[in-house]
């Protein structure tokens, strides 16, 4: 279980996150939504331990969060890889580093789920499309069966069909392996469909946290109502019955 208690993070002298509290049990998904610059990526960086909390704490089963060896899917797919190495080397790096065995057929299965031909892995990041690099990032995050995965807009560069398949693979794998997933997304429809909870960030603060259905039916704050209505009018979310 990932627990964040009363977290505040400063970048330089500016406070970019304040009073963030959340808990994410194993096997569940927390969808984090919020406008650009709200602090979503900052939250992920703090959980990873890349930014020191100014206040509060972040724990995984009572231990510092890094004990979970959290996997990250980066927001910028190309920056996520060593540009000089082929994708296979990068994707396999966690497996090699942790000295775990790769289950037979796992790579093939993940690649199929992500709609990536296996030979794509023999190319370098600059030789694939952004969407392919993004999926390679997801592949690397999931390959060594981590207990906690942080997704920073993992589907942003994918077309609607590939988005759907990729989202399905993530859910299937989560159901089998029980990892906790924190997924930052701009897609409210995706958040409601796949999130157990939804957390809305605004200007570094939690605007609202709710379970997915409650959020879709009865968002509490005015901001969240606007957000929901916008998503409905865009067709990303179905109007509540």
């Amino acid at each position, binding site marked *: 279980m990932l627990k964040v208690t009363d977290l505040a993070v400063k970048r330089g002298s500016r406070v970019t996150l304040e009073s963030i509290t959340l808990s994410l049990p194993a096997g569940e998904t927390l969808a984090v939504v919020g406008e650009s610059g709200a602090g979503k990526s900052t939250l992920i960086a703090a959980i*990873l*331990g*890349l930014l020191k909390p100014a206040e509060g704490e972040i724990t995984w089963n009572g231990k510092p969060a*890094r004990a979970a*060896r*959290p*996997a*990250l899917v*980066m927001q*910028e797919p190309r*920056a*996520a*890889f*060593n*540009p*000089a*190495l082929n994708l296979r*080397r*990068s994707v396999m*790096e*966690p497996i090699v*580093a*942790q000295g775990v065995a790769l289950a037979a057929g796992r790579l093939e299965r993940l690649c199929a789920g992500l709609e990536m031909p296996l030979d794509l892995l023999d190319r*370098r990041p*600059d030789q694939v499309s952004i969407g392919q690099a993004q999926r390679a990032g997801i592949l690397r995050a999931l390959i*060594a069966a*981590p207990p906690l995965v942080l997704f920073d807009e993992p589907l942003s560069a994918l077309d609607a069909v590939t988005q759907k398949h990729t989202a399905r693979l993530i859910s299937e794998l989560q159901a089998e392996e029980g990892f906790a997933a924190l997924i930052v997304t701009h897609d409210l429809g995706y958040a409601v469909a796949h999130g157990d909870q939804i957390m809305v960030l605004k200007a570094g603060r939690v605007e609202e946290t709710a379970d997915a259905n409650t959020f879709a039916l009865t968002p509490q704050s005015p901001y969240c109502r606007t957000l929901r209505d916008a998503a409905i009018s865009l067709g990303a979310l179905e109007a509540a019955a």
Partner: protein
Amino acid sequence: MIKAIGALLLRAAVVLLGTAILTFALLWNAPGDPAQTIAMARFDALLTDDVIDQIRDEVGLNTNFWHAFRAWLGPLLRFDFGYSAVTGRPVWPDLWTAMTYTFPLALAGLASGLALSLPLAILATKRPGGLLDRTSVAIASLGAAIPAYWLGLLLILLLAVQLGWLPAMGARTPAHAILPAVTLGLGVAASLTRIIRSGILEARGQPFLPAIRRRGVDGRAVARDHIAPHAAIPVVTVFGLELAFLLEGAVLIEVIFGRPGLGTFLVQAILSRDFPHVQAVVVLTALVFVVVNLAIDIIYRAIDPRIGTEDA
């Protein structure tokens, strides 16, 4: 890869031809009458016009440019550098002897420079901005500002004259090479330390590193797979430039330490206007540069396969 190396070889050949034309043009247009100088050097007196004309014929100074260029290039392609215009002895054996002094000196300078700068840079980057870091940057900047000849004299004064630990002049024993090599090496280390340091710092800032470290990839693997190759690219670049410094430095240092070698060879050749000797050094230097740069280009491609993929 084979195609890329072929293209690099072709480029190297073009550069060499250009250098050859340029070298010859410079010699052809050099002020003063070389025939006079040769006569002076040979007979130690000004001679009649007849004798000077004879010398002019002998060294091919009487034809037109392209004709003379072809006549000049032919033997060079066979590595035949002709005979000294001053002593009449074949150039190659003397040149070879000079090389056997200078190249080991330059290599020793490079090796000691690397041996000094690599640990220093790694230590400095342990805590960027820390005391050790600032000290090593300051030392390196100071070192880069000090001319090699001054440093050489200083080292002679301290280690040879005052303390008497090392021989200063000549090249009789391997110990004689220590001071010149260290003098060269300190200059190399000054620039390399800064390059390696900033290379390591930049490599450490690569955006994908934190995430893979969190996944259990340890510091050693990160250093080996992600930092060293990235930091090596500017170092390899500097090696090419360093070569110019080394040869130039070696020339000065040989004079200071009274060592035989290409430096002394070249200085004497220029002073006596010994065309074949000067030519030989220039051609050799160009060849070394081209070969080293070729090697550098190939090493680049081995370190980072992206390099050179766009210009096919």
